[in-house]
């Protein structure tokens, strides 16, 4: 059983309230952090090896150390709660059930960075969570953990919840900053990086909800102890959002030492695939990351067991591997159509493209149309090559990573499931009636009965 650092108290009755959270040991990290001082906190986070949990996996402590400290200019911490990557719903779980854990992480991190006004940018659809967070902030204020002179330290910190209005792009940190300024979510060209000129051109750090919540156990146990959990550069625990065709969809905290096979088939996690179906494919880190067929998912191209961590999931690069991404783990059973699944993602990215860069604005629309045509059995063989060509021309040619995020799922689907695309072209009547199933595989896939 994985060690739990974030969700260990998630099922305690009333944990959403300050009193229960405090009784269970909450806000100790704030008391400890105030005594440690800002530099020591940043050092602990660096030692912990914590990597950004939003998708990019950038070391959090290093990101913090980049923040500029010009005299007389306020700095801001912004919590990225714009969780919008298809397949990902872990931050929602954290905020909905453990709001005080996030608030505690925010206070410690704000103290470390010197942010007197900290913002939680939450996606607009999570409207009821805004109320939960604002209530938690008021409770924390009543106990002097938020507001003026926190615990007599002389440090002031206000936390504000800023509600977005439905835009995936605002999960990208510079688009989020634009949106926080009351503008369209068009990403900015970097540099300058937010750490130098962020919101209102002030030094800003943007971190994911889970990253900031993880600061709490890091302070409580110390960075070195935290780094002992996990493996290699995948330290600590990671929240996985598991969905698709599995028996037990939900949010799971893993310590990144378990295998992908165990994660899918063990009753402790996904609990296997419903109705005795076989595993066809999986997108292990949210819709943007490459889809992998079952054989490359469970084992790497070298034949080694694949594990649920940053390094192992990306083993083999994009040719035979994928990414940890945001931890949105989407499982497809044998009845699912990869072309259709890829089409829904292409439609998603077309819908969410901000329209600033032409490769993304035009390319995502082309990909959507071509995929729909193929899915409906009206495609040509050359459409598959055209799709490949378009995604190549988007990748790396846009201001922000949404272009890459739109290109990768299409590339991986063609790379690993080209025969399924071709089948749609060659059997147009069949394609509208049934799915290609597992015919993709020359060899039967090893499917474990139990783990």
């Amino acid at each position, binding site marked *: 059983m994985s060690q739990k650092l974030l969700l260990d108290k998630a099922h305690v009755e009333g944990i959403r309230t300050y009193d229960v959270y405090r009784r269970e040991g909450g806000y100790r990290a704030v008391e400890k952090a105030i005594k440690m001082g800002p530099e020591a906190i940043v050092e602990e986070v660096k030692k912990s090896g914590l990597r950004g949990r939003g998708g990019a996996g950038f070391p959090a402590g290093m990101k913090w150390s980049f923040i500029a400290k010009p005299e007389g200019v*306020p700095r801001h911490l912004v919590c990225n709660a714009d*969780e*919008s*990557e*298809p*397949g*990902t*719903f872990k931050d*929602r779980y954290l905020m909905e059930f453990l709001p005080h854990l996030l608030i505690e992480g925010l206070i410690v991190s704000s103290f470390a960075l010197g942010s007197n*006004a900290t*913002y939680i940018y939450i*996606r*607009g*659809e*999570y*409207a*009821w969570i805004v109320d939960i967070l604002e209530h938690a902030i008021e409770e924390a204020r009543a106990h002097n953990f938020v507001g003026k002179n926190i615990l007599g330290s002389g440090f002031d910190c206000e936390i*504000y919840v*800023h*509600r*977005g*209005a*439905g*835009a*995936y792009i605002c999960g990208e940190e510079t688009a989020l900053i634009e*949106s*926080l*300024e*009351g*503008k*369209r*979510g068009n990403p900015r060209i970097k540099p300058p990086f937010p750490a130098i000129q962020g919101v*209102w051109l002030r030094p800003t750090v943007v971190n994911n909800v889970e990253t900031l919540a993880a600061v709490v156990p890091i302070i409580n146990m110390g960075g070195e102890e935290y780094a002992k959990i996990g493996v290699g550069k995948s330290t600590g625990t990671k929240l996985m*959002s*598991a*969905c*698709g*065709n599995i028996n037990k*969809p*939900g*949010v799971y905290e893993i310590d990144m030492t378990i295998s992908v096979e165990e994660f899918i088939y063990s009753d402790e996690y996904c609990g296997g695939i419903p109705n005795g179906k076989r595993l066809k494919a999986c*997108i292990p880190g949210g*819709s943007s990351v490459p889809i992998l067929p079952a054989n490359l998912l469970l084992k790497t191209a070298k034949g080694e067991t694949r594990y649920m961590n940053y390094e192992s999931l990306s083993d083999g690069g994009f040719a035979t591997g994928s990414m940890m991404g945001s931890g*949105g783990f*989407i499982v*497809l059973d044998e009845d*699912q159509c990869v072309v*259709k*699944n890829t089409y*829904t*993602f292409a*439609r*998603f990215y077309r*819908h*969410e493209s*901000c329209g600033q860069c032409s490769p993304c604005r035009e390319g995502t629309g082309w990909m959507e149309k071509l995929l729909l045509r193929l899915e409906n059995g009206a495609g040509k063989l050359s459409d598959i090559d055209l799709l490949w060509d378009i995604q190549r021309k988007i990748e790396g040619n846009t201001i922000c990573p949404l272009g890459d995020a739109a290109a990768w799922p299409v590339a991986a689907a063609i790379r690993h499931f080209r025969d399924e695309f071709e089948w749609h072209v060659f059997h147009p009547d069949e394609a509208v009636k049934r799915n290609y199933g597992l015919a993709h595989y020359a060899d039967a896939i090893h499917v474990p009965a139990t783990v």
Partner: protein
Amino acid sequence: MAKFNDTQLTEFNRLVSHYPEGKQKSALLPVLHLAQDTFGGWLSTETMDYVAELLHIAPIEVYEVATFYSMYNLKPVGKYMFEVCQTGPCMLNGCDNIIAYITDKLGIKAGETTPDGMFTLKTVECLGACGYAPMMQLGKTYREHLTKEKVDSIIDECRKNAAANN
């Protein structure tokens, strides 16, 4: 033209107070939510102009934001809006059947409103409820693990609420 009442103005001032002096434009997104909730579930040009005036910004600054974000409705919508997710994970769990069922039952396609102005059906992209698919957003809440029976009971519930409020 309609204006915020005192309660709504207090909320407006609270939202603006979250941002530094002179940066009141930052409150635009939350204020547009407040305006949409207040003035019939959508943003007319008059409403947007009013918001611009309140925040001391040019109307175009409001229009460009209102047209960018998917949650702002730029034309009237039904009293109850079913926003059904259709992205990958919901598709894998059969959202197509749910959308088809609602279409049949209410006689409207995605993007349309029933003639009585009661229901609008909208298909939306991932709302972050992938583990509880298929799902829809209804007002401030999510309705998850949708089945045909559940859709029936949601429709009944809306009709009852509407009757009770009249």
